Every structure is written in C-alpha cells, then in structure tokens.
C-alpha cells in the first residue's frame, strides 16, 4: 500500500539512491544533484521506460499517459514532486 505520509526529504534520498544504483550514475548517491536534468547525469532516453516502471511499482502509483511528460521526470526534485502529488491524490 502507498505510504500517504511519505516524507519529501526521505523520498528525494530514495530517488537519488535508486537512480544512482540503477543507472550507475555515481559511486556515492548522496552526491547526486537533485535539480540537474537526469539526462545530464547519465540516464539515457531509452532508460525512461525503466524509470517509469520502477516508480510505478515502488510507490504503488498509477501513471497515466497524460502524466508522462518529460517535465515531470526531468530532475530528482521533479520526480519527487510528481510522486508526492500522485500519492496525495490516491
């Protein structure tokens, strides 16, 4: 079940860890910038299918076609906002 009370700071850390490890972005996930485009950090366009699937699964959220806008997934912070908004609307 989704954790409606999810903490933003904790979520950002989780996302940093997930992205770093899943796509080998950095050795120390804590150093991953949260406002830089994840494309610039090393995530490829084609990796987005994985990002979308994993986020859906980890946070038990439904991602509609109309949610799949690059702007929603561009940075760690934006992904966090997107997830929080989805969780709140659950």
């Amino acid at each position: 079940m989704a954790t409606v009370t999810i903490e933003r700071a904790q979520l950002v850390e989780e996302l940093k860890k997930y992205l770093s490890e899943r796509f080998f972005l950095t050795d120390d996930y804590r150093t991953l910038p949260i406002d830089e485009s994840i494309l610039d950090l090393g995530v490829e366009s084609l990796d987005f299918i994985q990002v979308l699937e994993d986020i859906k699964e980890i946070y038990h959220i439904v991602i509609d076609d109309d949610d799949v806008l690059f702007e929603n997934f561009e940075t760690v912070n934006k992904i966090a906002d997107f997830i929080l908004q989805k969780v709140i609307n659950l």
Partner: protein
Amino acid sequence: MGREVDVINFALDGKIDGLKNNLIGIMSDNAEEIGEYQKQIDARGFEPVIVDPGLENDQIQSLLEERQLSLLLSRNDYLSDKSIPDLMLSKRVDLKPEVTVKRPQILDLDSLPIPDRSLINNSFYLDRIGHGMTKNKISLMTSRGCPFKCIYCHKLWPKNNVIRSAENMFEEVKLYYGFGVRNFVILDDIFNLNVKVSTNFFKLILKHKLDINIQFPNGLRGDILAFDYIDLMIEAGTIEINFALETGSERLQKLIRKNLKLEKLHRNVQYITEKYPHVVLEFNSMVGFPTETEEEAMMTLDFIKSIKWIDFPYIHILKIYPNTEMEHLALENGISKETILKSQHKGYQELSDTLQLSHDFIKKYRTKFFIEYFLRKERLRHVIPRQLRAFTEDELNEKYTTYQSRDLNSLIRFAGIDKDQYTNGKDYKKNIQQLEVIDKKIKAHFPTKKYKKDAMKVLLMDLSTYTSKEAETVKDSYKVVEAPLGLMYLQTYVNKKLPGQVEGKIIKAGVDFDNFADLRKILQEFQPDMVGIRTLSYYRNYLHKVVLLIRQWDFKMPIVLGGPYATSNYESILKDTNIDLVVIGEGELTYLELLEKMIQNNKKLPDDEVLKTIPGIAYFKKQDKKIIQSYSRNLILSEEIYTTI
C-alpha cells in the same frame, strides 16, 4: 616478446628500401605497447615516432608530414574515426584522377536481367529481416534516378527517374510467388513517382490474384499520393510504408529543398491510419539542420505527435555528407570542414559537433519524443496488437531491437497488453514453402554456371554491414542485413553478356565472413583476378581498413570500387593507393566493359589508353600513380599482423 619482434619485422619486411628515413610511426597511447615496440625498433637502428590517436585527423596529418613518416603502425580501433586516405597520402600531392566521360543512364531497365539470386547465400537473407520487417522475403529494386533536389542527398544517381515496366516487375514477383514466397519488399526511395506504372503493377497483382504482402521500407513520397492510389496499393497487399518527413517546418522544407507539402502528407497519413489501421507506418525525420531553431525542431515533433498512430517514428541526427549542398550550407553557417569529417563515422543517433542546437536540447527533444509519443500506452496498445497480427513475434522482436534497442516483451509488459490474444501473425501470409525449398527452387531456376577453364575470377564484396568484431569496435548495433542486390545485378548482367567467361563470387561482410581471417581464407581459396567492393559512405573507414588488409596479406590483384560511397567520393578514395579504380554511378555497363578489356589484356587492368575509353570510371594514370605512391605512406594494422603472418 617474440610476437612483437614479428610485428616490427613484418612492418619493415620489403619496405626498408622505400622508407624515406629511419622513422617508424606508432599510433598508440598505450605505454606498454609503445615500450614493446620501441625496444624492437631501437634494436633495428630505427627511431619510433609516437602518434597520439587522440589527435585530430589534421594534426596527425601535419605530424606525419613534418616528420616525413613513410611507415605507420596502428591498431584497428584507433583508425575508426580517422580518414585513412588522408593518412596515407601526403598533402603535398595535388594530382587529380582521370575521370572519363559520363556513362549514359540505362533508360530501359527491362533490358537488365532479373537478378540471379542463386549467386548468394539465400537462406541466410531469407531468415533475417532487412529493411522490410518480414523474414522470408524477396527484395526488389524497380526504379533508378530521382528528380528531387534534397540538399542533404548525395544525388548520386541521374535526375531522370526511370522505372521498370509493370509487367517486368510483376514477372519477378510472380516467379518467386511460384516458389512459395509471399513477402515482397520494394527498396526504391520513391516507388509512387510514376503513378501510371506503379498503378499498373498493383493492378496486375490484383488481376492475377497474388495473395502477397508488399512493403516499402525506404519511403514513398507521401504528399503526391491520392486516396484511390492508397486504396489500390493496400488492396494489392501493402502492409508497411515508410514516409520521409524529415522536418515539420515549412521554412526548413524549403531550405533543404525537400519541399514536401506537409498538409497533404498529413491528410494522406491520417487517411491511412483511419481507414487501414493494420498498415504499419514508419516515419523518418531529422533534427540538427544548420540554422534550425528549437521551435522548428519542435514542429517536427508536433507533426509526428499529431498522428494517431505511427508505428515506427524515427528521429535521426542530421548527418552532413561531404560534397553535398548540405555541406555548403553547413560551411556557410560556420560548421567547419574538420567537424563535418569527424562526424562521418557517427551513427544516426549519436550527437555530433556539427549540431548547432545544443546537445542538451537534443537529448531533451529525443526524450520527449520517446516518452511522450513512443511510450504512450494508448499508442502501444493500438499499434502492437496490429503488428502482432501482421508480423511474427520473432520479426517484431528483431525490429524493436534494431529500432529502439528494446525487446518486444518489455513494451508489451509496459503497456499491459495481453499478448496471447494477438500472437502468431494471424493475418500473416506465410510463405507456403520452407526456406530450404525456396532456396532449392531458386537454385534450380537460375542456370547452373559453367565457367571456361581460363575464366576470369572476380570477388564482389558488399561492405555495407560490419563483421561482429568491427561492429563492437565502432559500437554499431545496427543489425539490418539486406541481400546485395546491386552486386547481383552486376554479375547477372555479366553472366548474360559474357557467359562462362567471368566467375563472379558475391560475398557480404557479416554473412559470408565474420572476421578478417575468414575473408583472407576466401581470397586465398578463390584467388580472384579482381576484387570489386561496394559500400555506403557510413562504412568508409571500414572499407579502407579491409583494402589495407588485402594488401597487407600480399594480394596484388586490382581493387575496384563502386556504389554510393565510390560515386560520391572518388577523388578522395583514390588517395588510397591500394585502390586502383572507381566505377562512378550505375555499374552494369561499366563493369561489363571493364571486364571485357581486362579479359583482352590477360586479366590485367588495361593501360591508360584503353581505360580512358571506358565511360564512367576514375583512376590515376600510371605515371601519376607512381608519383602518388612515392608520396604515400605504408599503413599497417598491427593486431592483424598475426592473421597475416
């Protein structure tokens, strides 16, 4: 270090007299390798000159000039982004090759015999998808020449578009239909240009009730289609169409002189998607034209997004080929020649420095396209079930792997499609015969080739695919393999005109040989009197490496180049002194005439006096070639020496 002694010995073998000084160039940034070579070079009283492979082509050339190096050893992979002809020939030589009068275009394509497919390893090609999406298919070329003026195009072929008669095309289709083939791929760029002939072709298919699939993977001109033409082509069996949009901006359409009527194209595509949703649509577009703005790039994306749905939309990075009007436009807009040359080895998906739009923008642009259109579940749920009806899972998988490095199942999972409902290519017109049977029938149909004892032997090589190792070296994952139709045309024509006099063996990289050692074996066993090679500009470095190796293996027969790369770049190609002659443009008549003259000359290349009478070729006159050779450097692929010795 015995092996390294061999390398230096080999490099010097027979070349000492030709060296201008006691310098040996070593292209390497590997300290261990340099150290090993250095010892061996020192031991022989020579001096090594280390050439950093990270330097620009121009810088390397200058270094080679400055030190007057006449021997350079390099590993294969260091040469992948270098211009080999420029490394081989000193800049100081400014000789131009002889170019004979233009060969007139073949106006009657029906006069060319239907290509003899028994000349190739058919079962391999039948079992793979090529440009079209189906396996077990026969690819056809039906027209030549193009009247359009797109500035990114090499415009290699005549402006006059000629097409085979509808009856002649139909005869070829009927032949293979009789063998059990049901999938036909028409490789032309603009099959629909001649509306009358192409209409008649579709009508013949319908009249004779041939139940076939037809694919147009290389493009139809989408703005000149009429609804009744679309109805007819689809009724005749068309299941796949590729449209070349290139750009959604009217200004850029004019600038690149594609001049597509975007509204008409849109209307036609919309018509197909609504009325014939089973037809698989491909769309080619490009980004990165000189002067293109971000807004204009977005127009292309918006055009694609406005169509529900395109099965395989492509966004390529513009590749600027030398000697095209696009190159002029790029130069005028501040893109340097060096940058253009450096980008030649890049794939259509790789970011290159010729782009004026920022790399960040392009990355975002492609990601937007990928996630907001390609990955849209509504789209996937619409197109994949239809594709599964028309194609086998196996074919689709291959297509998706080449297209987006994605396997079909990951997309099916992502979109939540119930695959079992659709699989097995329900509407798929399977060939009614097994591959082996089709292959046998093809072999039985075409006359067995009997050659005279002293027949001339020609090895025709298609280098428009990489061997596995080379693909790894240059990081190329493009897996599409088409049968070498052009080479079949050449050899079939010669077999008809000079029966028994020329034994032509056709091979293709990645198919008939998958490493250099195997290629060497083929050459040793076949012992050709001439090697003819055809490739595309994209594979230029690979071609020059193969030619280097053929000489490194000490084969001395003439090497002749033809096809798109040869036609557009013959001047620079001939700087590679290992190449003797280039055939420009359409090959059949020139190839025939060249062979006739060689046969008369004891299977050797004829003298300049004779060569100059053959239309459509370029070569260096003997005396110029001597000068060139004296300014030419020996380039040696070091790691291939082990397969050489």
